């Protein structure tokens, strides 16, 4: 499977292939090769087969539901799918079978997409390497000793290994963009409120957003088209109309103004990443973009702010895992308190416990103002920096991640080093802005490098158009996955 999502959609439209053929090829490829990668936690073969047959009939009749009708896709295991186990990478949800579909799952089905399976992730989306999954890590198809990023590492690896042409993930502090960068594909975090989170296992509700992975920006745009829009089941979802995200691709990028924040090119950025990202910026300049240096003076405070806000919200969201209504329950507790404490001790992994502890601490009596309220104030300053920048530029451009894919195990015992991976991605979450990572090059080890574009609220169309112009065309499949 070497074609991109939009090429596949076109081939289906021309009748050159069928949904059943594509689904069968995808499943066959996963069975042959995913032993090396561990992108998928489980396949939904029966569901995929019947969805593909229904799509066959619609395609044959020339009446597709959308451009995605019959296209195979994968879902991060954070999306509830009726009748299919959904674990969020945690032991505490092992065996949990949701009684309903997440809104994005319902929308993908309504667009005719064929869901092939559920993808690995850091437990409750907490991590940057997929090593915090209770079900074992995912490997980067470009180098199996390295991480595919996280938390949506299964979603990125599945696209890089060409198992499926598109997947969905979630991004709370970079969990779509960083893994996309580390495997050389496109990953989009939409504006906060653009996509419904109903039926998505919650991590930090003021930051979480659902978004697509695909080999390129055009594929990401097709998936966003299917999932964007208001949902009465998610009060934060915006009622703004959903534009045609593909409309801008033919228009070019001439005259668009790009801001290069000097804070994103300082200490910690690997020279090879910098060189490649700067080459990507030059490419856009060559296509007629105006480029200027800008400052986001409060962005260096983003990681510290994030680890208060996100953990505080997580400590509250994860209170629901108490062994009463669903999921794991510890045996033998003498009373309700012991049942809660033992259930959570057995069900959560180390990183989730660490974050619950940090968030509980930040919200506890005597520390609330000093940590949580102060972090929310710094968050306001970080947002203000961006809004000021957008008065003079159309998009902010820079690296997605300070380094290329690191070795599995390398940062596992040093939580702070792991957190600092997200230094360039977290600011967009705190400010609620859309961000896109696209492949812009490779380092001397042959590992992919990602370039990030951050746009104005609800201007996904602009960053997708820029991403389409900036991204490497025809990134080859990794060795061993051709």
């Amino acid at each position, binding site marked *: 499977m070497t074609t991109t999502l939009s090429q596949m959609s076109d081939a289906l439209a021309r009748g050159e292939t069928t949904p059943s053929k594509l689904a069968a090829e995808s499943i066959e490829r996963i069975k042959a090769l995913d032993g090396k990668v561990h992108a998928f936690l489980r396949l939904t073969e029966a569901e995929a087969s019947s969805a593909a047959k229904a799509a066959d009939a619609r395609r044959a009749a020339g009446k597709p539901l959308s451009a995605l009708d019959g296209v195979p896709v994968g879902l991060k295991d954070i999306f509830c799918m009726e009748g299919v186990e959904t674990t969020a990478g945690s032991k505490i949800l092992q065996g*949990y*079978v949701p*009684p309903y579909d997440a809104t994005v799952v319902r929308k993908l089905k309504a667009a005719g997409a064929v869901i092939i399976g559920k993808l690995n992730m850091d437990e409750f989306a907490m991590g940057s390497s997929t090593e915090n999954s209770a079900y074992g890590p995912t490997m980067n198809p470009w180098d199996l000793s390295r991480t595919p990023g996280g938390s949506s590492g299964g979603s990125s690896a599945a696209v890089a290994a060409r198992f499926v042409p598109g997947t969905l993930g979630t991004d709370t502090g970079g969990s779509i963009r960083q893994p996309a960068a580390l495997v050389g594909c496109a990953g989009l975090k939409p*504006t*906060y*409120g653009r996509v419904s989170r109903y039926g998505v296992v919650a991590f930090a509700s*003021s930051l979480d957003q659902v978004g697509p992975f695909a080999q390129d920006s055009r594929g990401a745009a097709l998936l966003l088209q299917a999932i964007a829009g208001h949902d*009465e089941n998610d*009060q*934060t979802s*915006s*009622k*703004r109309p959903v534009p045609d995200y593909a409309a801008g691709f033919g228009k070019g990028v001439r005259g668009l103004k790009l801001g290069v924040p000097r804070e994103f090119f300082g200490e910690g950025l690997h020279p090879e990443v910098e060189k490649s990202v700067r080459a990507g910026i030059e490419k856009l300049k060559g296509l007629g973009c105006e480029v200027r240096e800008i400052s986001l003076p409060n962005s260096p*405070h983003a*990681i*510290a702010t994030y*680890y*208060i806000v996100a953990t505080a919200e997580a400590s509250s969201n994860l*209170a629901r895992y*108490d*062994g*009463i*209504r*669903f*999921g*794991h*329950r510890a045996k033998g507790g*003498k*009373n*309700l*308190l012991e*049942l*809660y*404490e033992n259930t*959570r*001790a057995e069900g*959560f992994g180390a990183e989730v*416990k*660490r974050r*619950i*502890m*940090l968030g*509980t*601490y930040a919200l506890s009596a005597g520390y609330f103002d000093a*940590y949580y309220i*102060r*972090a*929310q*104030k*710094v968050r*306001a*300053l970080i*947002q203000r920096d961006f809004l000021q920048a957008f008065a003079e530029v159309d998009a902010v451009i820079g690296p997605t991640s300070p380094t290329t894919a690191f070795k599995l195990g390398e940062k596992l015992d040093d*939580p*702070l080093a792991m*957190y600092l991976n997200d230094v360039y991605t977290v600011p967009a979450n*705190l*400010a*609620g802005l859309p961000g896109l990572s696209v492949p812009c090059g490779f380092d001397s080890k042959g590992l992919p490098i990602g370039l990030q574009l951050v746009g104005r609220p*609800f201007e996904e169309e602009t960053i997708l158009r820029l991403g389409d112009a900036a991204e490497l065309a025809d990134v080859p499949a990794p060795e061993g996955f051709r």
Partner: protein
Amino acid sequence: MAIDRAQVRHVARLARLALSAEDEERFAAQLQNVLGYIERLQAVDVSGVEPLSFAGDAESELALREDAVKPSLPREKVLAQAPQADEQAFLVPRILE
């Protein structure tokens, strides 16, 4: 700010997490390290700044849906996911001695 094991135990109780002695020690050191990093926020001038809790579409914040009665999930499908339930309710250990 020093985090000792007594503080870790207090926070773990608030969070309803049973921790082993080994966990307590490890978390004390790791939380100390992360909080040390977060300490930098104390140096940011935030005078006159309002805390930001919602970075979304301001209009959506007020978009309440109509308060109408609608069907909810079937009880048996929901109870089927419970670790322990009877025909109509979740079951928990005795609460009153």
